[in-house]
């Protein structure tokens, strides 16, 4: 089940501005592991994770057709 990953802010310097597709990731931990392999510069960068626009923590199950967003520290205003 494919998962779409979008990133913002400083993470676009690493992963670009287009969504990245990841094919097999049962949960967010697996997903991050795979992204870390494809984008080594992502390791240790500060960000939180949102699944379908909800902020999640820990190992969050992915059902497929999710949109996962990696959100570096906010800087609005």
């Amino acid at each position, binding site marked *: 089940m494919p998962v779409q990953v*979008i990133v*913002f*802010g*400083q993470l676009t310097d690493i992963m670009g501005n287009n969504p990245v597709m990841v094919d097999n990731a049962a949960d967010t931990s697996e997903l991050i592991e795979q992204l870390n392999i494809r984008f080594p510069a992502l390791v240790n960068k500060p960000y939180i994770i*949102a699944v379908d*626009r909800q902020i999640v923590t820990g190992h969050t199950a992915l059902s497929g057709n999710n949109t996962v*967003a990696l*959100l*570096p*520290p*906010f*800087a*609005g*205003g």
Partner: protein
Amino acid sequence: MITERKPKNIFTQGPIAPSFIADSIQKHETKTNIGGHSIFLGQVRADLINGQKVAAIEYTAYEEMALEKMHVIREDVFAKYPLVCMHVHHSLGKIAAGEICLFVFTSSAHRKAAIDACTEVVERLKAELPIWGKEIFEDESYQWKENK
């Protein structure tokens, strides 16, 4: 009956013009139950960082998520303070130093609610909305803005 407020768009391309702010104030003339308005404006600073001057900030957002979050903030603030109204506008795109990028506007019968609500919205917006700013220097190099 509880009034449901629908998510409103807060994003606007480019800077927020002073004339837009004036129009927004003007529209409240008919709301004669208002006694006080509190306004916060964010303006892009030409910070000097390692000898380089910030010429502009380019704002981007995870818009759908930001609007959902802003809706929650709005509902919370209306539940907490006796406001007559509240308006929030945040720029996207490139905003030059000296231009306005944020406009928060709260109104109430008595001043305290408007002032406290405005401050709370500004604080929550900066902490909770997925918005990013790229500080673009005069030589086109950049760094990512960090909120303190």
